[in-house]
């Protein structure tokens, strides 16, 4: 079965701190990788995605993620967080050419203290 894990359930940071949220998946083959964000009271929005090419992907709002195939990882990073980054972050994986389904990780709640 497809499995996506996220390392942290809840991360608390102060403003200007650096952020790294871990994401690992459990199968080989070609995958498409995504990070979604859900701000309080809002619906899911795409932060960034990886399909092929440069494994370092830049997304919106200063976020980036690095795909490391050998580690089955797709960690999300931001050098300096802001209070407005407080949200729930979900990693998602889609196996290329294997059905239509996205599999979501359990989510990491980020709280940024002003």
């Amino acid at each position, binding site marked *: 079965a497809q499995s996506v894990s996220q390392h942290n359930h809840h991360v608390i940071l102060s403003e200007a701190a650096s952020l790294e949220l871990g994401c690992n998946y459990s199968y080989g083959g070609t995958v*498409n990788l*995504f990070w*979604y964000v859900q701000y309080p009271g*809002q*619906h*899911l*929005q*795409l932060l960034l*995605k990886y*399909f092929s090419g440069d494994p370092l992907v830049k997304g919106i709002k200063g976020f980036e993620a690095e795909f490391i195939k050998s580690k089955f990882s797709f960690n999300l990073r931001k050098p300096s967080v802001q209070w407005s980054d407080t949200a729930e972050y*979900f990693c*998602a994986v*889609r196996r290329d050419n294997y059905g*239509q*389904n*996205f*599999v*979501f*990780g*359990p*989510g990491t709640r980020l709280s940024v203290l002003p």
Partner: protein
Amino acid sequence: SAVISQKPSRDICQRGTSLTIQCQVDSQVTMMFWYRQQPGQSLTLIATANQGSEATYESGFVIDKFPISRPNLTFSTLTVSNMSPEDSSIYLCSVEDRGGPSYEQYFGPGTRLTVT
């Protein structure tokens, strides 16, 4: 990108009743998906709904409990039948955009269901 609306945005229902959730997209899409997000948890796919065919349900979800309609390329409904408190959740509609070489899913705002 696709803009998705859902109705109702929230509802409180009594156990044993049924609720139908509507999902409207502002463009024609082939694939529509229904997810459940239980309190404090991630998204779980309930079913995939293609226009003109029966919905495909994921393991643990059955048509009798979650009947789905997909009458055209911009609309779908999910019914939560014979509800129990365990069905309290946020139900999300999403569509897949296959424009270009990559895939992306867009999500509706969700329907927050509380069953008492």
